């Protein structure tokens, strides 16, 4: 019998008319003469707001520690010693406290603070981006004195100054509320902006020659209560009252942050984070915040293309769809459904994935369907006891067997960092390349690729670690940390962890936007079908009659570049559905122009399995169409109409036919803006692997390849504000290994693997594990994919001078 059972029984035994026991967390206080029930430990400002009494504020932000800096939220609080002036953002409720937010004194103080804040404020509202949505404007209107008596000359600073590639600072507008600096320090862990000088000359500044190059800098613009911080992509683009907006979910990565998508004149102009308690707490990463520029790009595919003697030429949808249908029919005739492969689907909505899964499996009949592109873990990981983000961020111990979350799933990094900073969780990290969370980790084990099983077992045998793991809940974040090895060793290490920690929950650190949704909705092989690697190998061997790429670019994303190249050359027919003409879709015989994010509605599934809505805000570029619509049109031409006439019908069909999505309907989602967590799919695929990695030859180095936040992905490369943030590929080697290899920092060297060789510059990097070489994947310059053999357990390298 569990504790809760006991409680229920004893409650049942007691007389029914008994008053419920007093809530130990309830605190009764008086707010402006009315008794309210606040929560124990709740700040006065929050309790008042919950009870409909908004106390004006600038510095207070409920996701950061209060500082009591702006003094706008001053109230009078009587705790038995008469009314005392205090800031409501730092005082917690106490029994029988009397709070007055409307007294004459409070009113006088609010007027005083606003007059003083405006004294040096430039009042350049007509040309300020914040004008119209500015807390300083709004609160001046509501609580201000109505006139200014400040006749002295105002403070002057150069305006604005860039503090990073993305953010501009106007110190004249700044009211020194400490929000941006607190965010940078407390939340992002990038304390690169600080106060300097003091008194009336206090200002925000970066350190000399150290820009505020945080992955999260855009959040400071969003939380700035004035127009002091502005973001390059939005500056002077619109007035807030001209913006139209809709709530949506970011699908840049699989965290699924809730956003507001804003547009004007049918052009996407800004994304703002929405505070979704289980997911992003209002934060966004800069990549997700600013990559709408790519959607507005002129390079987008505006119409479908078909290959003629002159190459790919624009055509009508009817012509393109029938050309695609013909290619598929021909392929079926030539080799049957087994010789057709469908790759992709992870970048669209659930509806896109569901319609394409239906088309591939049920209409075409191909078992060779996969949403992952050789850069994740087996889909079976989804079938494990799934953790939510909250489970991870509240676990006693978080085990990271994952890529650098800061680079791949940035807002999940913020949540884990918060858990560590607020002493809820301890992190045990296993990584081939120490990264963003290494400094936060209680224990960090840098391993050489292939040795993760041993590293994990050794750690589990440590009594101190075992004691920590036994202390409470454990959440494992599992993902692909290295693209230059097979998944076997990581899967085996995960199995070792689960064997030792049977109650641990697992959060799959799958990266691509809707990869979890696509896999759960059917974009995975049917029994006997091929996964992406096998499909590409079959294509390279000339055994694929038609390769269908649904928003999928193997040349850029598949770790083994050589195989991707051979596959695209070997596939007899290629149909691509894409938003841009990528290196891969250039090989296609038919390219179908797809609508992008913000141009289509539907739902998406994040790595927890949380299903949330994705909303259309602008019309699709050119004649492009959502993927689900393309799948439906093709199904009709292939003689078996899927019959979807609206996205809602696809959502309903998925809710009806896919067990884990039962009940996740448009109506249900409208009731829960934070989304609905789809149940863990039962026995999706068993995960089973035994690594056959062998020891490294001491002359060799072992390759680690992983992604940075900014790479050559279209969303980044086609966003002018972000594109230049991607770094060129360099080989990162431990300084001592550089000496051992006899090469020189900054010089070009030759890296050779059994698969191939590249010329690349060497960089010294103390975070790299000894004996390994780390190269960022999918960056400009040398392509590390040339070194990777996707069938090799690990990739060993030689470093040679040219």
């Amino acid at each position: 019998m569990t504790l809760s059972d006991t409680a229920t029984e004893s409650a049942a035994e007691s007389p029914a008319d008994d008053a419920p026991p007093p809530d130990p967390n309830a605190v009764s206080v008086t707010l402006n003469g009315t008794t309210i029930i606040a929560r124990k430990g709740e700040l006065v400002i929050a309790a008042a707001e919950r009870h409909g009494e908004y106390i004006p504020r600038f510095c207070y932000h409920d996701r950061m520690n209060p500082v009591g800096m702006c003094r706008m939220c001053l109230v009078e609080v009587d705790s038995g010693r008469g009314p005392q002036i205090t800031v409501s953002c730092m005082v917690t409720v106490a029994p029988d406290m009397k709070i007055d937010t409307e007294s004459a004194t409070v009113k006088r103080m609010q007027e005083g603070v606003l007059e003083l804040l405006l004294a040096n404020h430039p009042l350049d509202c007509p040309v300020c981006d914040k004008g119209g949505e500015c807390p300083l404007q709004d609160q001046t209107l509501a609580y201000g004195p109505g006139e200014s008596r400040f006749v002295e000359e105002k403070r002057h600073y150069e305006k604005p100054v860039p503090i990073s590639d993305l953010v501009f600072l106007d110190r004249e507008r700044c009211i020194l509320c400490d929000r941006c600096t607190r965010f940078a320090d407390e939340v992002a862990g990038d304390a690169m902006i600080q106060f300097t000088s003091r008194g009336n000359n206090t200002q925000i500044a970066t350190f000399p020659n150290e820009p505020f190059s945080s992955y999260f800098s855009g959040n400071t613009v969003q939380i700035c209560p004035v127009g002091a911080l502005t973001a390059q992509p939005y500056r002077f683009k619109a007035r807030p009252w001209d913006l139209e907006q809709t709530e949506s979910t970011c699908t840049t990565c699989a965290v699924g942050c809730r956003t507001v998508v804003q547009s004007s004149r049918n052009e996407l102009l800004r994304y703002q984070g929405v505070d979704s308690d289980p997911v992003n707490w209002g934060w966004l990463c800069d990549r997700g915040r600013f990559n709408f520029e790519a959607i507005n790009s002129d390079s987008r595919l505006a119409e479908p293309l078909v290959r003629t003697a002159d190459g790919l030429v624009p055509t009508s949808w009817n012509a393109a769809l029938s050309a695609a249908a013909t290619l598929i029919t021909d392929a079926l005739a030539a080799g049957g459904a087994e010789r057709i492969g469908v790759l992709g689907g992870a970048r669209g909505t659930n509806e896109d994935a569901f319609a394409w899964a239906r088309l591939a499996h049920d209409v075409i009949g191909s078992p060779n369907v996969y949403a992952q592109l050789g850069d994740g873990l087996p889909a079976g990981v989804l079938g494990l006891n799934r953790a939510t983000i909250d489970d991870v961020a509240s676990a006693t111990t978080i085990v990271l067997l994952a890529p650098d979350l800061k680079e791949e799933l940035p807002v999940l990094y913020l949540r884990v960092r918060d858990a560590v900073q607020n002493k809820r969780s301890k992190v045990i990290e296993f990584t081939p390349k120490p990264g963003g969370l290494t400094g936060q980790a209680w224990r960090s084990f840098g391993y050489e690729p292939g040795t993760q099983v041993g590293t994990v077992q050794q750690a589990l045998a440590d009594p101190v670690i075992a004691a920590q793991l036994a202390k409470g809940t454990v959440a494992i974040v599992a993902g692909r940390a290295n693209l230059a090895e097979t998944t076997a060793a990581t899967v085996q290490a995960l199995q070792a962890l689960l064997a030792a920690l049977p109650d641990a929950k697992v959060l799959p650190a799958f990266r691509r936007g809707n990869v979890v949704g696509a896999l759960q909705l059917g974009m995975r092989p049917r029994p006997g079908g091929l996964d992406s690697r096998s499909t590409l190998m079959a294509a390279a061997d000339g055994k694929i009659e038609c390769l269908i790429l649904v928003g999928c670019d193997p040349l850029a994303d598949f770790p083994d570049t050589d195989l991707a190249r051979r596959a695209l050359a070997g596939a007899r027919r290629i149909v691509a559905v894409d938003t841009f003409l990528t290196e891969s879709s250039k090989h296609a015989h038919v390219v179908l122009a797809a609508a992008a994010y913000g141009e289509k509605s539907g739902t998406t599934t994040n790595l927890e399995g949380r299903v949330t809505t994705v909303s259309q805000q602008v019309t699709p570029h050119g004649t492009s169409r959502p993927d689900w619509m393309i799948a439906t049109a093709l199904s009709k031409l292939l003689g078996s109409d899927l019959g979807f006439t609206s996205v809602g019908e696809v959502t309903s069909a998925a809710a009806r036919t896919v067990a884990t999505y039962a009940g996740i309907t448009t109506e249900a989602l409208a009731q829960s803006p934070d989304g609905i967590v789809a149940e863990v799919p039962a026995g999706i695929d068993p995960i089973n692997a035994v690594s056959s990695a062998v020891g490294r030859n001491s002359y060799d180095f072992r390759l680690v390849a992983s992604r940075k936040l900014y790479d050559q992905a279209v969303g980044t490369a086609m966003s002018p504000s972000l594109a230049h943030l991607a770094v060129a590929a360099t080989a990162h080697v431990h300084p001592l290994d550089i000496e051992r290899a006899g090469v020189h920092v900054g010089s070009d060297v030759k890296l050779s693997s059994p698969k191939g060789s590249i010329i690349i510059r060497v960089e010294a990097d103390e975070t790299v594990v000894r004996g390994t070489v780390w190269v960022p994947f999918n960056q400009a310059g040398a392509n590390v994919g040339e070194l990777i053999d996707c069938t090799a357990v690990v990739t060993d390298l030689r470093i040679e001078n040219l």
Partner: protein
Amino acid sequence: MSESLTGTIMPHAPGFIAGDRPRIVTSRFEYEDSYTLERYLATDGYSGLRACLTRAAADVHNEVKTATVLGRGGAGFPAGVKWGLTPQGKFPRYLVVNGDESEPGTYKDRLLMERDPHQLIEGCLIACYAAGLSQCFLYIRGEMALAQERVATALNDAYAAGYVGTNILGSNFSVDIVLHWGAGAYVVGEETALIESLEGNRGMPRLKPPFFPAAIGLYGQPTIVNNVETLANLPWLLVNGAAAYTAIGTESSPGTRMVAVSGHVRRPGVYEIVNGTTTFRDLVYGNEFCGGIRNGNELKAFVPGGGSAPWFLPDQLDLPFEGKLVGAAGSMLGSGAIMVMDDTTDIPAAALTLTRFYAHESCGKCTPCREGGTWLERILSRIVAGNGTDADLDQLLEVGESICPGSFPHAASERLGLTAVPFPYKMTTICFVGPSAFAPIHSALTLFRDEFIAKIVKRTLIPVTAAPIAAASAAGGGQ
């Protein structure tokens, strides 16, 4: 330590004048080598610590509580009570010594550190023993080079002689003292800002509550912050006992206190006076103290407790150094700094000097202080420069009310028919820097408004001529 014991008695230390009065903290000031360990040991040094180590910590704590040693930093809170405010069972807990003496007019702690550093170190040890504190941090103001040098040397000598460190004097009492130099910010004299600075952060005050140092102080641990002079009292107290201590002064203000007098007196300096009974008149006019106003001038006003205290007039000269009485009279004893202004003083200019200091020293955290302080300074500068207007005078008070809502304390004046508004004031800021920028203006303007009026621009109305318009046009030359 190269200097040998000279035994020379200096007539008086610079800025210090002895007299035939009880001397608790300045007893060694007249020795040329007062700061050496040798002199300290030769004059009963560290016997308070020895006495303390033979007793239970609670017993020592009780002795201090019984003696009612008032905090000498400004607030005047009894040290023994303060020590008892730390939560039970939470360790480590720290002693932070506030040696960032920077209140305008105050220079008593500097002398205590320069001339008797061992007395301070011994005081720290006694406090740590009595209050069960794990470690001591001694924060000395950045500008006090000699004090830093003397305390550092003394601490090294004390460590070498086994008075500080592990198993002090063979007992199982161990405590380390860490020295830290400030970087020159007035606000760091505020205890929570000092803790921030000590932690390596920007010196900005924290809000109390929740950041009462005794509960959440240095590194989030319980922390006692004591003033230098407060701790310097402890060795004498432990040797002579609480009864001897309370026999000096009054019941509510026992012992002695150091006061620093500056301004228009014949003999400015630091004096150790008997607490509670000595009056301002004794201090300013007494022959054993300041000896009256310079050049035989008249006293115009004086600041009784450091630059941030509201001013007193000659009407208040007979008040004794007794916190409650001074508070009721509309000011505070603060840090024991008396600034005397004679009848030659330009009152608005004097107020501007003080306001400018506080405006400049604002840390920039609270809006009213950051913006209001500078605004006050600019209005007052204009007035002092002769460019002010009538409206500016009310504006000064209006801006001040945004920092201190409600009535602001001031002294009574028979001449003006004013009754006193007692201390304290209400404030919209975290710490006292903001109100301090307003206090001199409020006092000056309340007590000497005529001097401000004399400075503001006089606009003379041009009388309307009686001449008819036509005549005026004709006179204009027939355009």
